[in-house]
């Protein structure tokens, strides 16, 4: 166990702020960290790269005092560090911004930041006590004890927080309630929370998973500013692009093992991918020509509103033919969700017609769309894509449970359903499933859950597949897999409508490309005819939009939903 307490502490003066040496952490049946070393220098952005399940989070939980390592030592600032709980890490100067924000929407920014380290109200603070009978009373132990528990002084913290915000150029109103902030702002509040506690090392756990590309860009600028000021940053990620663009060095983990630490400038993307996945990853996808068939989707003049009744889609025409992938590019919240849901039959359009393989279905129930051969990969895997508490088997037949192969009109043959589910799991290489009847969907990692959903939707050999952000938040290996399957399905004659915020993905996969902006299709083109730059400009509203991108609409409900997993809507 804790070897460091036997060894005499040796203070080494180096540029290294943090040295984690030979960290071992095992769970029953799993070695989550197998002798992992991690050294972070002062003033660097250090990437921690690995697929889901590689042990990144475990290592950071060890560093944040949430897990005790089985073996290994941690030195911080040259001194051995003993971490029993997160408070010890915070005291030592380590701050963490979790992937799921830990903020209370009703409270103001300042209140959220001082949570756990608040000060008593001004009249009870030492420097304000003064003389006299009243002061004696106020300084007496019982009164102080009560004051420190039940009074709240926000004046001084508020000043300090706005100073901090100014210093790093955060545009956050410190007195605004958190629920009024968008995702990017909420993340900045989390960073402020760490800075308020005087951290030297800031850990960010997959910070861009919830951000739009524009917001991610802003985050990286902030991080640069922080390291210029002498802070060190650990950036946990599985996105190679981010590693390349912002980190100084990167440590790669794979299945709990330490693959090594490299200077980011000395490696290219494919080398990093190989370190991370353990084999060559194809970034260029071979896209054979196919013959396009009859239209499978013809949406004409479709308008739709979001859950709050706000117009999100105005008179959109989209056609998808059998055997082609039509890509939809756009900044999150410009009506993609509504378009996807409308053509998949989940949301009723307020105007317009939808024909699936020539059948008019605008007012039909979701069941009729399913019966007509429409498959749908929704944006939010957990909210809409699965029933987390039910087994993998249940989820595998969520769409196909009506099929005759699973029994007669009344009885349902769970035996053959289980066999079918096991087949899907094998075919699509869904990992982490030992028994399809007992493993719950919610226990699968994001990538594996997405594979399961895709498997289910493709097993029906649909005429039309609507896929909304099918590769968001999943690791490189799974992304490659999903893209290959989408292409394969297109080659088999399925029409695919693909929504993505990843332009590389759209350019690699699409046969035709549409750009959506504020609920309208503003550009119809093909990847060969256009450039990423042109699409980027159109996504942001053309020439005039250069300004409006930077300060994206704070009332943008879609991004806000993403921030708290949709909780604020319910």
């Amino acid at each position, binding site marked *: *166990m*804790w070897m460091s307490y036997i060894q005499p502490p040796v203070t080494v003066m180096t540029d290294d702020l943090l040295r984690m040496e030979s960290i071992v952490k*095992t*769970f*029953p*049946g*799993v070695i*989550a960290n197998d002798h992992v070393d991690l050294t972070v220098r002062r003033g660097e952005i250090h990437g921690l790269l*690995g*697929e*889901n*399940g*590689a*042990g*990144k*989070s*475990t290592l950071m*939980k060890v560093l944040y005092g949430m*897990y*005790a390592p089985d073996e290994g030592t941690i030195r911080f600032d040259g001194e051995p560090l003993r971490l*029993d709980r997160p408070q010890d890490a915070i005291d030592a100067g380590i701050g963490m911004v979790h992937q799921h924000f830990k903020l209370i929407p009703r409270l103001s920014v300042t209140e959220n930041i001082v949570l756990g380290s608040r000060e008593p109200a001004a009249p009870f603070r030492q420097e304000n006590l003064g003389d006299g009978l009243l002061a004696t009373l106020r300084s007496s132990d019982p009164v102080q004890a009560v004051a420190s528990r039940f009074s709240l002084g926000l004046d001084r913290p508020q000043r300090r927080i706005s100073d901090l915000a100014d210093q790093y150029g955060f545009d956050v109103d410190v007195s605004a309630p958190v629920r009024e902030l968008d995702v990017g702002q909420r993340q900045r509040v989390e960073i402020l929370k760490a800075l308020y506690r005087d951290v030297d090392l800031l850990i960010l756990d997959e910070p861009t998973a919830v951000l739009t590309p524009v917001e991610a860009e802003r985050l990286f600028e902030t991080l640069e500013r922080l390291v210029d000021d002498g802070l060190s940053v650990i950036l946990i990620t599985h996105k190679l692009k981010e590693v390349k663009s912002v980190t100084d060095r990167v440590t790669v983990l794979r299945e709990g093992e330490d693959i090594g630490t490299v200077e980011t400038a000395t490696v290219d993307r494919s080398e990093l991918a190989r370190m991370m996945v353990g084999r060559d990853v194809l970034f260029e996808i071979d896209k054979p020509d196919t013959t396009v068939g009859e239209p499978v989707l013809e949406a004409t003049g479709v308008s739709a509103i979001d859950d709050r009744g706000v117009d999100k889609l105005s008179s959109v025409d989209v056609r998808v033919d059998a055997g082609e992938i039509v890509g939809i590019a756009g900044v999150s919240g410009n009506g993609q969700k509504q378009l996807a849901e409308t053509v*998949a039959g*989940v949301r009723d359009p307020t105007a317009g017609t939808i024909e699936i393989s020539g059948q008019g279905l605008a007012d039909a*129930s*979701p*069941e*009729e*769309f*399913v*019966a007509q051969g429409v498959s*749908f990969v*929704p944006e939010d895997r957990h*909210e*809409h*894509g*699965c*029933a*987390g*508490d*039910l087994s993998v088997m*249940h989820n595998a*037949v*969520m*769409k196909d*449970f*009506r099929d005759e192969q*699973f*029994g007669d*009109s*009344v*009885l*349902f043959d*769970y035996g053959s359903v289980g066999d079918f589910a096991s087949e899907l799991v094998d075919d699509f290489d869904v990992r*982490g499933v030992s028994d399809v009847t007992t493993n719950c969907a919610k226990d699968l*990692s*994001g990538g594996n859950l997405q594979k399961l959903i895709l498997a289910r939707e493709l097993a029906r050999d649909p005429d039309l597949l609507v896929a909304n952000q099918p590769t968001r938040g999943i690791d490189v290996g799974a992304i490659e897999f999903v893209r290959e399957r989408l292409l394969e399905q297109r080659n088999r004659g399925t029409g695919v409508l693909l929504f993505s915020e990843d332009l590389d993905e759209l350019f690699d996969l699409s046969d035709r490309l549409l750009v959506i902006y504020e609920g309208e299709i503003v550009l119809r083109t093909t990847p060969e005819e256009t450039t990423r730059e042109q699409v980027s400009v159109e996504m942001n509203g053309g020439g005039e939009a250069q300004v409006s991108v930077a300060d994206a609409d704070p009332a943008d409900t879609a991004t806000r939903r993403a921030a708290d997993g949709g909780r604020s809507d319910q």
Partner: protein
Amino acid sequence: MLVDIEIDAREQTPSWIAYGTPLFAIAAALAVSVVALVAIGVNPIAAYVEMFLRPFGTVATISNVLVRATPLILVGLGVYLPMKAGLWNIGAEGQLLAGAIVGTWIAINVTLPQLLVIPVILFGSAIAGGLWAFIPAWLRAKWGISEIITTLLFTFIAADIQLYLVRGPMQGGSGGFPQTELLPEAAEFPAIPGTRAHVGLLVALLIVVLVYVAMNRTRFGFRVNFVGSNADAAEQAGMSRYRVYLLTLVAGGALAGLAGISEIAGNQSRLHASFAPGYGYTAVPIALLGRNGVFRMLLAALFFALLFVGGNRVTVAMEVPSAIIDIVQALVILFLITAEFFQRYRLSVSIGRRDDGRSIRGTEVTTDD
């Protein structure tokens, strides 16, 4: 001195914990209840023997428990079924009353041979209970109005209608008590030979099996499970939330209605002003304890029947105030429901210096998700 409490979610529940916790919870509740019993000068051991062991003494005492269990099983199903679809039928009491009223009316006013009249009575009560649940079910399915509130409010309506009827139009028998006249002999549920238990028990057990088959072997059960687990995802897959909500809640109401008439026609022989001491409310913890499977719900209903019958015995035989027995019963229920926490979470408490705190901590599995 530092008390360190760690709570971790369990990845897997060991089987000794899964089966042991209910027993341990009951034991713990009884241990706490000793305080109340000793305070009023009752020997707790004797009281517990009277309460939990004596009911198993003879066929007659066992059949007392079964008589009490019959309405609890039926009304428990009436809460269990909607719960599977994610609905809380808090107002099963009202549906039970509706079934009792209509069933009693049919029994008194329809003259048919026994073999015909009993099915008619059962059918009528089920329809009445189902109808009583229909409006809350429709409001929930169509407009999303909380069934917790509406079913509960419908209970108040049913209770007042019942009071009005037994004091007014349906009042009967001698002495002007708030009750109906006795049911004609043909309408009384025949007893199972050699016991006091009546055919209502057989009906209840049959329905338990039917519900098991429906939930675990049919496409309908698949839909109910799916809607109950994630209604949004179920709708995307083309399952109708509307239909599932309406069907399960109305079916639940029908089962509660059956519970009402089986208590009257099988046990009490007439509709009193206060014939059902909150069976419909008791059904909620029964369904909650048994929510992982209908046979567990059956066990829970039998256990609650034992609690009631045993409690009565203690009140009568040992002259313990019934309020004290209520306390014992409430503690048992409370401990049982709390105990489920320990099946899903691991709690490690360490007392002492901080250095001892972590190294002996339990293990847990994590993913980088």
